[in-house]
């Protein structure tokens, strides 16, 4: 019995030591890959900022297949990494199974809600940001036709599309919005060739501004838009620099802030649902030297006005995911 006790306490001590030594945060990138110039890259930027400011270090993994999701999560949790940050809606199901097994580990999930006492779910009001860039698209369009190209056809991307259409219609009720989704499998996040073809198809239907919410596929969209001399709108990270003067703006989703906050708070992180929107700076549109000539004062005033109105609740942008319908087409 005494032997058992000492063994157990020894084990507990080792566990504690291990926990203390290895309590570095971990970051799991979704299938899009760390440098997708978009969503995952924003997460990486946030983590890098945390490293620069604190001198800490973090563990990371880029997923290669669906099967690795649970494995990676459990590996990090077993390893004592805390908190574990993961990007992407696709972690939802896996995390709701894994989180209860590691009650002492804090998880931060970006883009999806998991109801567990040790999970912080960060969700973004993408519809608000899409609304803003939609207004700019309608303002910049000469033909009255604008396009939307989504990645994989999931409710989240429809949320982008719906917000965008609402923004376009708010400025120009007669505008036409052509909507396309790249595909229905995760390969749709990384198919720039298809992105190009969709852009060409939309251009031939009259679109002169296209908004790409499609991960790596968006690279093809922006490229073709620049080649064909129309404007494009980037997503998640600031993509204005990719084709200076050809990218109207980018819908910024401050995933970097979400990751930075999670890593800074460390194990004391607040759990529950945390919404980042226009009101608290979690969502914005990009304005820098690359797109300044495209955004005139009129347009900027319009969008900044809308930002203020969304923040104080005068404008409510419909969220597609709240009822899976969109009031406008």
């Amino acid at each position, binding site marked *: 019995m005494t032997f058992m006790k000492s063994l157990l306490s020894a084990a507990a001590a080792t566990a504690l030591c291990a926990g203390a030594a290895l309590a570095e945060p971990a970051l799991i990138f979704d299938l899009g890959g760390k*440098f997708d*110039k978009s969503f995952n*890259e924003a997460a990486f930027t946030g983590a890098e900022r945390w490293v620069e400011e604190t001198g800490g270090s973090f563990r990371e993994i880029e997923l290669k297949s669906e099967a690795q999701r649970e494995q990676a999560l459990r590996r990090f949790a077993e390893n004592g990494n805390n908190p574990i940050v993961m990007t992407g809606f696709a972690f939802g199901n896996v995390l709701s199974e894994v989180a209860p097994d590691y009650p002492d580990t804090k998880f931060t999930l970006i883009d999806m809600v998991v109801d567990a006492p040790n999970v912080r779910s960060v969700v973004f009001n993408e519809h608000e940001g899409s609304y803003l860039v939609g207004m700019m698209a309608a303002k910049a369009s000469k033909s009255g036709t604008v396009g939307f190209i989504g990645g994989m056809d999931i409710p989240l991307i429809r949320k982008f599309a719906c917000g965008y259409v609402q923004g376009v219609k708010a400025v120009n009720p007669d505008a036409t919005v052509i909507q396309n989704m790249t595909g*229905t499998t995760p390969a749709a996040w990384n198919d720039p060739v298809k992105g*190009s073809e969709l852009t060409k*198809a939309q251009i031939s239907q009259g679109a002169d501004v296209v908004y790409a919410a499609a991960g*790596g596929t968006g*690279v093809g969209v922006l490229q073709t838009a620049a080649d064909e001399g129309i404007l494009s709108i980037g997503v998640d990270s600031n993509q204005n620099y990719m084709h200076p003067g050809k990218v109207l703006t980018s819908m910024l989703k401050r995933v970097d802030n979400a990751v930075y906050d999670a890593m800074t708070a460390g194990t004391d992180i607040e759990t529950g649902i945390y919404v980042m929107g226009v009101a608290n700076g979690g969502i914005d549109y990009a304005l820098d030297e690359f797109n300044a000539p495209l955004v005139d004062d009129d347009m900027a005033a319009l969008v900044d006005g809308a930002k203020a109105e969304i923040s104080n609740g005068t404008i409510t942008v419909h969220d597609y995911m709240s009822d899976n319908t969109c009031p406008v087409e």
Partner: protein
Amino acid sequence: MDFLTLLQVLDSTIRLATPLLLTCLAGLFSERAGIFDIGLEGKMLAAAFFSAAMAFMTGSVWLGLLAGIAASMALSALHGLASITFRGNQLISGVAINFLASGLTVLIAQAWFHQGGRTPSLIGGARFEQITLPFALGPMDAEAAGLPLSKLIAQAGPLQQIYSEVISGQTILVYFALLCVPATSWLLYRTRFGLRLRAVGENPAAVDTAGVSVVGIRFAAVAICGVLCGLAGAYLATALQAGFVREMSAGRGYIALAALIFAKWRPWYALGATLLFGLLQAVALRFQSIDIAGIPVPVQFMDALPYILTVVILAGFVGKAIPPRAGGEPYVKER
């Protein structure tokens, strides 16, 4: 659907079918010589990366093309070594090549360019330009008229529309790919080499008896396969796109394999099959849902249709698809 929309869909079809066609012909050479090749996807991907990388570093798309072909041929040589010289399992070797290419391209791209498994965007001479054929409306005419090219074409007569929209304005690799079809047909059915190549895939022992090297012919077939896959990869990265993005081949190698079965391992049929698959993709991209006789057909169905058609063909509903008889089997000389 008006006439111009139809032409735009056909234009898109040609762009989408070209990589499929080149890869399909690549598979045709290899499989007709008795070497199954699952690794088409990997070779295309490797070629896409190396062509983009070389084109970026030298600023010349032609050097890029050569680098892409070289990379693809290196993987072909590996496949040949494993499956011809060492008589390994051809399917496993092909799958290994796919994994190798998928991982290696991202790894090298990250080491060279530090942009997370992609190459920087190609500009100017590092990309294949669209060729405007004589008498066709091109960017120059559009500039002179002060109108976008699409508007200018819309105003032209129907013949000029077909010529300018579909036939002209493609990159040189498209025309080359189309020329490859009669060339392949001639090589396979009209030359001594072609006869031997087909015989090696049907009955290698007979070829051996005639005093022709089975190994030599098979390696030659695999090398041609490498060249064609290299062209397909370079087309993706330097003509359709301006750079390499990881996994950018996005399963086109597998669709090409399906097209090969659909075409029953024949060159002209391969052209038909790849154009059909390209058309299905183009239609799916252009229209998010299509009404056929009042029934809405979802776009997912259009995406799946190439595979469904292949299964139908394999099941023997529309003629029987008989693969080369000695396909997949390493040749062992009798003692």
